[in-house]
């Protein structure tokens, strides 16, 4: 495989406060190639947003990346000067956020906010950057782009705003696009439109995409590869086909089982009991063991490593397809 566009290795984020240290991201590693869409999935609080904010160097204070590396085409972003980092933001790496309602500044026009980023990173004069903004709005399927440029965010619908966000994010032709739950706040038909749009644009511009979501339906539709996160760690990583056809981690299986089926009534996340522990009360051993239906004593005591089971398929779990037997053997070796 060619050199990856983005290479995250053993990324660790921590928040230090009077109450102590919490680490929402604990040794996350994965890669994104050019033109590839990597979905990062996991329940709320699993550290998806913190991972993506780390890439842009935007972990909110007092949080900090304290270990690991994030290399964009070989250059480590965690070691970069702020001024260098700013040249990448919105230019080489762009981000789309979850809430289209609040992600645009309410007091400036769409045009003002779009042209701002275009002029910042490209050597274009005012008319050229307006032209560029119009082109981008056109590209994301916004009718009457010239008129929309003069409008304020509150005059647009949620779907339109998210299109604007996408147009803005792509306006400088980024190599990497991070989309943090770009469709969660939108209704289903608009969701599909936005996802299709992102897919089309990615193919057209050959952008690498990190798509953060907890909606596996979305993943099936657009992702090439899937990274499953739990408790600030990657617990499974594989191609989208592998994840859907041969999931190995009980957590992934649980997530898959909780996908609402088109035929039946919508199930709650009933397949996995309990909820993600907060970073301050992470259990020892496998972080998933308190909720795992097949946890053994080994799982409670020893923290499993991420290992490759079949080529390009990684998991962080002691269990194999053979199941519990193998584990009981392992347990006897440690006790």
């Amino acid at each position, binding site marked *: 495989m060619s050199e990856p566009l983005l290479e995250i290795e053993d990324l660790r984020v921590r928040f230090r406060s009077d109450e102590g240290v919490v680490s929402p991201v604990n040794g996350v590693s994965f890669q994104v190639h050019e033109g590839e869409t990597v979905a990062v999935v996991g329940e709320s609080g699993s550290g998806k947003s913190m991972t993506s904010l780390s890439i842009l160097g935007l972990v909110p204070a007092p949080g900090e990346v304290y270990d690991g590396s994030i290399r964009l085409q070989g250059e480590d972003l965690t070691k970069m000067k702020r001024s260098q980092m*700013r*040249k990448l933001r919105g230019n080489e790496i762009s981000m789309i956020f979850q809430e289209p309602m609040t992600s*645009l*500044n309410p007091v400036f026009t769409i045009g003002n906010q779009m042209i701002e*980023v275009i002029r910042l990173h490209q050597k274009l004069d005012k008319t050229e950057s307006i032209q560029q903004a119009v082109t981008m709005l056109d590209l994301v399927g916004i009718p009457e782009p010239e008129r929309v440029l003069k409008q304020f965010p509150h005059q647009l619908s949620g779907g339109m705003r998210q299109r604007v966000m996408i147009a803005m994010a792509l306006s400088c032709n980024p190599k990497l696009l991070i989309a943090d739950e770009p469709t969660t706040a939108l209704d289903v038909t608009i969701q599909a439109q936005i996802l299709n749009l992102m897919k089309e644009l990615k193919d057209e511009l050959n952008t690498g995409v990190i798509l953060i979501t907890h909606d596996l339906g979305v993943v099936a539709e657009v992702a090439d590869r899937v990274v499953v996160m739990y408790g600030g760690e990657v617990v499974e990583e594989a191609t989208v086909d592998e994840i859907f056809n041969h999931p190995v981690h009980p957590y992934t299986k649980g997530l898959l089982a909780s996908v609402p089926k088109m035929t039946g009534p919508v199930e709650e996340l009933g397949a996995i009991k309990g909820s993600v522990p907060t970073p301050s009360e992470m259990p020892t051993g496998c972080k998933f063991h308190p909720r795992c239906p097949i946890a053994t004593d080994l799982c409670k005591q020893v923290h499993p490593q991420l290992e490759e089971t079949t080529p390009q398929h990684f998991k962080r779990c002691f269990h194999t397809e053979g199941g519990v037997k193998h584990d009981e053997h392992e347990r006897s070796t440690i006790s």
Partner: protein
Amino acid sequence: MRFFLTSVIKIIPVLFIISFIVFFLVRLTGDPVSLMLPETATDQQREDLRNSMGLNDPVYIQYLNYMADVVRGNFGDSYKYNEPALEIVLERLPASFTLAISSMVVATLIAVPAGIYSAIKRNTFIDVVITGSSVLGKAMPNFWLGIMLILLFAVHISIFPVSGSGTIMHLVLPSITLGTAIAAEMTRLIRSSMLEVLGAEYIRTARSKGLLETVVVNKHALRNALIPVVTIMALQTATLIGGTLITETVFSWPGMGQLLVQAVNARDMAIVQAATFIIAILVILSNLMADLTYRYLDPRIKYDD
């Protein structure tokens, strides 16, 4: 424009109520005749004056006459200056205006950077210093600060004149006195408003675009943070006017505030009435201005009408 018209229409009942209050306040403070005539005046003289002033008419007639005068802008003559009260008050208006504007400039120059800075450096030493100073600034009485400034910068080191008006130098100390008092409140408002805005998602978006932090703060955050500040400051115009009364008196600044204080002391009721009325109108106008500024700052308002 429609907004402007409706606002003007809304003002009319307010003015009506104010005139009503002024009318009774003046009549509650005692018999004006006994103040206007020397103690040696005879009963006949007093009665004549009362009759000529219409004070023996029934109250509602007095009120109607008074209203008829007020509508024509006639608040009676000042007995001290022997001139129409309204004219005297209006003559003083520019001086007060100059002081108010320059104090607001001083306040803004202090409060905007201080408020922003303490917000972005929250919970650091510098934030504590700024917040502490604004508490101090609010607690410090205006007259005391004014006198201290006079002692320091006019008496000890004579950079500025002690009092009076005429040159720009005369304006400096009164503006600082009044300005710092306003700045104290304003800094606190800007700080808390900024803190709220800085956590907003559009700020994260702005940063994700690669903008300089100064642009993020001074463009994206400040513009949003100022919206509530403008409103609250406008509601404080009354406090500002209260401040001008004291500041003008301390510095002998020939404005409306000084005039009003003197008129109250001299029981020059025509002037008190006219000044009160003008002040009320100013407060209303400033609220109207705040509304307009608010609309300008927050595009969401315009379209909600």
